[in-house]
């Protein structure tokens, strides 16, 4: 049975876990860290760097270092999120051939799934090194709000990285899986996930029978840690204007410094009650005099500044409970996920809302990857007697006359599911209908995401409203959407399997897969060379060290001198190869060095 790894592909950090001996474990990378930065860079020499190594050089190579690619994945180039990223990111974001987003690093343009694939490939390598075997399958997590396009793009990234992504699950769901796994309990729990950019609340039922059921998932895609930072920035800017009459907003560099300082202060105030924000030489005054920003921010002030944001999350929690037909008392535990939940105000508000202390037993950085690994094992390992009953993240429907969105499958429907509705023609003698398959919550079709379209033709010529067409939406357990349209009179049918587009064509993905595979091979060869080089160097050092002793023992005889000459030749050849850095040749020389080393040790040992 193939091992399935679970990957939490985060905005800033990624984490990989696997089931071992019936329990999920997080795998540390070579540096011993359990999380790896989701960063990719290309060096001047054209070398690809992923993870910590990419992060370390980010300051000096900002233009060619991609971070937070997750914010761009599966999005259209003209979407507001991308516009915002273009304004704030130091790396170059360009438009792809399908209206998708690409980034330009050095002279090469990469699609976002390619960038994410590099991170996934790194996670795959970390797991392979730990397990000592190839890994082919993975469960990858995404935020609950991700639409089909973003999910598909994440799957494509997996494919490019050589991973079969057998399932995409939501991050809060994964957190709940990790929380409930192996515990013999029947509980209804809430997962409160306040991350950098978004807020998610999920309610799940966990049972000792090994069933996890997502009751509902809701959230606000524009409410997260960044909004908290913004409040601090606004407060700093306002204070500075009052003091110096200068608007720091006009200076991009100052703004970036404010942003960093605000985030830092916010984090600090989770553990201390007061912090100082100190930004010397933030800007020059009109008289060309350098001005400094220096202010003290207390936890109480921060809480006052951001109370309404926390309230917003609590209101969403209350609405979600109500829609699920649940009472606060029905929630038996609350799990906190996401960095923002470290904030004491958030913890207090959650405790007050649910009338219970949130669970502290899960590690917010690892819990999602653990859950993904659990789901992977649940799917492929027959010994894992559990099943996750997941829901559709968004409403699915079609466009009807007037540009309205007609819902077929509502948000939070447990999958697999299907729904039918009967529609009629809108024009006289209309012989074809175009079915636009959409996803989203807006009642205006244009504001929702287009998943696919097809045309049902050959309708009977009849007045408007006369021809009845039954449209059926079906979502299987894998989240694959198929849509059928049927002329109820003639029985004529058309159907499509909606394959959300990630912005990449099949050919592009295929070529990227090949590219990534070659890259993986090259990298592995690199590693072998490196290993040989290290071994050669070690052997050379040891041989040199043994040389005087060996000379003493065998130097008297002609045979011995001959042997020493040969050894010298081996060493010098190895040195020259080592200097040339020829990996393939080096392997052979390592063997010769090993023989020499063995002989030397034998000689010294006898003597």
């Amino acid at each position: 049975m193939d091992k399935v790894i679970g990957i939490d592909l985060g905005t800033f950090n990624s984490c990989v876990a696997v089931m071992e001996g019936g329990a999920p474990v997080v795998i540390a990378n070579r540096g011993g860290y359990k999380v790896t930065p989701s960063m990719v860079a290309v060096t001047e020499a054209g070398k690809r760097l992923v993870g910590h190594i990419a992060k370390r050089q980010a300051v000096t190579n900002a233009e060619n270092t991609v971070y937070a690619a997750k914010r761009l994945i599966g999005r259209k180039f003209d979407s507001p999120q991308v516009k915002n990223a273009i304004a704030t990111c130091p790396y170059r974001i360009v438009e792809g051939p399908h209206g998708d987003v690409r980034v330009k690093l050095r002279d090469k343009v990469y699609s976002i799934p390619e960038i994410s694939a590099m991170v996934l490939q790194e996670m795959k390598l970390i797991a392979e090194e730990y397990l000592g075997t190839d890994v082919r399958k993975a469960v990858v997590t995404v935020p609950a709000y991700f639409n089909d396009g973003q999910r598909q793009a994440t799957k494509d990234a997996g494919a490019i990285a050589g991973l079969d992504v057998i399932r995409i699950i939501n991050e809060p769901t994964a957190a709940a899986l990790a929380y409930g796994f192996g515990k013999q309990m029947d509980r209804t729990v809430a997962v409160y996930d306040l991350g950098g950019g978004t807020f998610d609340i999920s309610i799940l039922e966990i049972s000792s029978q090994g069933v996890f059921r997502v009751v509902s998932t809701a959230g606000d895609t524009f409410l997260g840690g960044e909004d908290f930072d913004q409040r601090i920035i606004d407060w700093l800017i306002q204070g500075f204007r009052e003091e110096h009459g200068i608007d720091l907003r006009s200076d991009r560099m100052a703004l970036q410094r404010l942003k960093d300082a605000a985030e830092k202060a916010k984090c600090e105030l989770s553990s201390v009650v007061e912090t100082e924000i100190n930004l010397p030489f933030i800007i020059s005054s009109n008289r060309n005099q350098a001005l400094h920003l220096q202010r003290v921010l207390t936890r109480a002030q921060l809480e006052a500044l951001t109370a309404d944001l926390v309230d917003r999350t609590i209101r969403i929690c209350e609405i979600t409970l109500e829609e699920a037909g649940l009472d606060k008392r029905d929630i038996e535990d609350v799990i906190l996920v996401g960095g923002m939940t470290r904030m004491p105000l958030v913890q207090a508000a959650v405790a007050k809302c649910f009338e219970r202390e949130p669970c502290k037993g899960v590690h917010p950085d690892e819990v999602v990857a653990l859950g993904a690994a659990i789901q992977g094992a649940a799917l492929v390992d027959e010994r894992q007697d559990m099943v996750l009953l997941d829901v559709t993240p968004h409403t699915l429907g079609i466009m009807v006359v007037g540009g309205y969105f007609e819902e077929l499958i509502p948000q939070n429907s447990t999958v697999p599911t299907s729904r039918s509705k009967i529609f009629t023609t809108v024009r006289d003698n209309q012989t074809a209908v175009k079915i636009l398959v959409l996803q989203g919550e807006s009642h205006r079709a244009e504001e929702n995401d287009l998943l696919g379209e097809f045309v049902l033709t050959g309708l009977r010529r009849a007045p408007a409203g006369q021809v009845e067409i039954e449209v059926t939406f079906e979502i299987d357990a894998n989240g694959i959407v198929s849509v059928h349209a049927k002329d109820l009179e003639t029985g004529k049918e058309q159907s499509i399997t909606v394959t959300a587009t990630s912005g990449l064509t099949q050919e592009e993905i295929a070529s990227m897969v090949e590219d990534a595979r070659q890259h993986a091979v090259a990298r592995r060869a690199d590693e072998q060379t490196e290993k040989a080089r290290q071994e050669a160097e070690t052997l050379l050092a040891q041989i040199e060290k043994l040389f005087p002793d060996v000379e003493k023992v065998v130097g008297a005889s002609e045979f011995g001198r001959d042997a020493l000459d040969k050894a010298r030749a081996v060493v010098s050849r190895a040195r020259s190869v080592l200097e040339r850095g020829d990996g393939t040749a080096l392997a052979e020389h390592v063997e010769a060095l090993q023989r020499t080393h063995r002989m030397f040790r034998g000689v010294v040992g006898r003597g």
Partner: protein
Amino acid sequence: MSGAVPRIVAPERLVEMPFGPREGWIASRIDGLASVDEIAALAGVELAEVRRVVDLLVERGICEWAPPTPPPPRSSAPPEDRASRPSTVVPRSIGTRPPPPGTSRTLYDPAELEEDCDVEPERRRTILDLFYRLDELDHYQLLGVPPDADRGRIRQAYFALSKIVHPDTLFGKRLGSYKAKMEAVFRRITEAYEVLGNRRKREEYDAYLSARRSVLVGGAASVATPERTGLVHREAHRRQFDDTAAPILASGGADDALSHGGAPPRQPAAPTDLETPAATPETSPSLPSLESASPPGSTIRSDLATAPAGGATPPHPDARPSPSSTRDSAVQTRAREVAARRLAAALGRPPPTAPQPRPSAPAATQSPETNRRDLAKELVSALAEAAALTASSRVQSQLEAARRAEAEGNLVAAVNAARMAVALAPDREEVRAEHGRLRQRLAEAQADTYERMARYEEQSRRYAEAAVSWSRVAEGRPGDPMPLLRAAECLLEARGDLQRARDLALQAAQMRPDDAAAHRTLGRIYVAAGMTASALRALETAARLDPDDGVVKTLLRELRR
């Protein structure tokens, strides 16, 4: 092979059952004497349905399997042989014990169990069992929980089923046709759980179910009365002697309260197949396997059709009845046989010994001829006694029971009693009038309940059921065209019986000849049925009454082209 017969052991608990009137009707036929297929024949319902009801009752401990009373002797000679060869007694077992719950109940083709895929045999059975009963089970039955189950129990039941039918539990396996079936079952159990797991929705659903059940409670109560084992019981049997009772039997109970149920009979009466060799008495021991290969309905019908007249009854005047009358006469014959046995039991006589030649049995020492004569004598005298019991006073007592029940406010029981009276004295106009009056009162009393049910059913997009409920509302509110129209429209929506839809819409249109909506609905029904000329007439009337109706206008334009 002689099967056990079901016997009610806890009649007072019958009301606990989540039954509809139809199930109530079936339950009322269980008397500890008749086997399941006899009950099916007597109640005029499908064998499978009887088995389901009996299984449910047995599961709840309300009913148990009792050793059978041996059937009275009867002739096995096929009709054509009767003239030349006077009846010979051949042992024949009727009543095959239904398989215990959980096993295949001939709901599906056994070949489905053999499909080449990776679904485990045990799981296959569970899936198929549920899949083929999705339409007939209510949410509680589907999840297998009692109606008073708490949230935890419902959740547990739903989760346990999920682990069997959720496709992820067989991730990456070949599921074949089971994938779609698992998904369908999963959708339904999810729907059931979403309703029962949500306080508000469950309240609505319970209100709906109790509305449905409120029709039954009265009926079940009448089943549970002590009277049941006494006079009423015998009256019922007397009724079955009466040829005029046959239509009631064949139509499965003509009473309103009983004809409406969760699962209206979907299958029309199966055609009688006299040539079915499988059903001849000689091959009857192999019946169970045959049943599993053919629809239960047809099995029982053909079985009945070839069951010859009982030895104790006078020879049927028709030596070779026409196929259509054969079934009726066969039903009657069977009814007579069962009734004779019940009578014998009710009168406290030892049941007639089974004539099966058994070495150890005393009967074996007698010649079959003597044996038959004795039994025949016994039965004739039993019948005579029964006839004496059925004086007109019985009609009177039924009418009195009806009045009593009416006074107590139990209209269902009143209608039931009146119906008995009608069955006893079908020619007495005043009895029929009383029955009609009570029926009308019941219908009026239940109209609001039915309306609530209808609206809930519409809301749940169960239009076929909503159509039935609306037509009940219509009966309770004579003169109101609204329920008639709603019923017709629901039938249209459900793509159901268009003829019935037309009848309903016609009634509405006659009630309010100036109502454009009625004519429009009528027109739409004709359009759906492809009856252009009639559609044109109806729509033209509608257009005359309401010239601004856009739907009518477009429909007319289309039709005139």
